[in-house]
């Protein structure tokens, strides 16, 4: 951590002054937001500049590397026609619902695997095996079993996200210092109380990492599931948009699709996981700044 941002003040100024250290005003929200937002924006701008330079140098033909402006035009068209909202909404709401259902299934599953030896040995490896199955593998079966509708999509998302979240939880639970559940037991925690009040909160920092990976899995599975079919009934999501670009061999459209998916990924990270992580780590004195 950089040394506290103190104003110069002579120590002789009086001891009272020290009781509440003369710090940079905390309320300077603008500055703090800037400190958060600037680095990623800087990185993105840098990326775009490199892209533009590479393109301008005509290092590759245009059909290999599209012009940034061409991609921007596509995105702008989506924005100005309002279509971008449909794309975002379709994909994000599906991903959120799929993730939420996955969570409901994965948490009990992870708890069972981590805490019950037979389940760990019997089901544990199978869950990892499931996790290694690509989402597209499930597409034919999903269509056969569920038909061409949202159920098929959720099925694919679930099979991607559940094993990942469950594994993340198991890994988080495995790292809980054994003294904590022992203390819990000594304090009178039963099976359920111990899980609810000791194991789950203790595993939270590790579990958060697993959740992030689980989200990535469910989002990526969704993108794969959205490739199943483009149909008016299903609505058009980002996955379809990307797929259309690929079908038309339109590299600008592919780039626009990638960028939009990327933006959602970064957005979810910045708006959901980053604050969650920060607050969890800070409450436990695990911030990197403590190092």
């Amino acid at each position: 951590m950089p040394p506290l941002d103190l104003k110069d003040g002579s120590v002789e100024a009086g001891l009272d002054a020290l009781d509440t250290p003369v710090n940079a005003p905390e309320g300077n929200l603008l500055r703090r937001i800037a400190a958060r937002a600037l680095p990623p924006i800087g990185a993105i701008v840098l990326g775009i500049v490199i892209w533009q330079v590479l393109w301008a140098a005509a290092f590759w033909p245009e059909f290999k590397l599209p012009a940034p402006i061409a991609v921007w035009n596509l995105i702008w068209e989506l924005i100005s026609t309002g279509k971008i909202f449909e794309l975002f909404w379709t994909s994000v709401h599906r991903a959120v619902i799929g993730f939420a259902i996955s969570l409901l299934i994965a948490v009990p599953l992870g708890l069972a695997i981590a805490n019950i030896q037979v389940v760990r040995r019997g089901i544990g490896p199978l869950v990892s095996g499931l996790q290694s199955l690509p989402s597209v593998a499930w597409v034919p079966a999903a269509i056969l079993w569920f038909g061409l509708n949202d159920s098929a999509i959720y099925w694919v998302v679930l099979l991607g996200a559940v094993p990942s979240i469950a594994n993340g939880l198991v890994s988080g639970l495995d790292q809980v210092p054994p003294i904590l559940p022992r203390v819990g037991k000594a304090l009178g925690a039963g099976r359920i109380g111990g899980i609810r009040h000791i194991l789950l909160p203790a595993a939270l920092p590790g579990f958060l990492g697993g959740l992030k990976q689980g989200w990535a899995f469910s989002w990526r599975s969704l993108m794969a599931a959205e490739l199943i079919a483009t149909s008016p009934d299903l609505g058009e999501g980002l996955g379809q948009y990307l797929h259309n670009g690929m079908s038309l061999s339109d590299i600008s459209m592919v780039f626009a699709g990638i960028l939009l998916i990327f933006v959602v990924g970064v957005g979810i990270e910045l708006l959901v996981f980053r604050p969650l992580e920060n607050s969890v780590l800070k409450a436990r004195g695990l911030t990197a700044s403590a190092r």
Partner: protein
Amino acid sequence: MTATVEAARATTGNAVRPVRFHQVGKAFGTGKKSVVALEGVDLAVETGEFVCLLGASGCGKTTLLNLVAGLDQPTTGRIELGSSRPAVVFQEAALMPWLTAAGNVELPLRLAGVPKAQRRAKAAELLELVRLGGLGDKRPHELSGGMRQRVALARALASTTDNTGSGAGKPSLLLMDEPFSALDAITRDVLQGELLRIWQATGTAILFVTHDVREAVRLGRRVVLLSSRPGRVVREWEVAGLAGAAEAAAVEEINAELRKVISSHAAA
């Protein structure tokens, strides 16, 4: 298998003893690398008794407490537990890092289903008792070593208050593993006094591990000395009500015995 724990009421004669060891042994690991921590331990704590456990570092005191608390199973012998679930002060503070100091103290009450307002009040009171009034909203990592130990103490005290439900009617038991080791002399004095007061007021039995012979003699009614490798009960002293010169003599005698036990082990 001879190693069993009977959680039922153990009525030997007609007294309900909070805990009684029958030739208890405990080994860690198996085969060549196994470590025998306890061997053939016979020990009983009477209802309302204050027993201090002394022994060299690594002789098995913590292991013994864990057995009583039901956190480990003996490898041989038998433990009769007549008390309701014992409250434990662990050697490490082992606070839950995601809870504030007050949250940690409230935890056993929460697990027992005590309503929120009552929990709050009780936690504040206990924090006051361990001289941490007003620090309830600090997180464990913001507390000093001694403060953490005191929070753990308050937490254990909170968990003794459960005398309803399955624990009803049974004698209660408090297990304390060097609870005052990280405290300055004055705070320690105060807390020793408080502990004695609580002990007298509630009639709970206490099994108290310490390294400080003086503390053992001051607090305990009985002092039990464990040997090292393996831990066995070497000798016991009744020290209830000793004062002045008698107390000093007892301290002297126990110290000498402790020295003997430890040096004999070092020689072996």
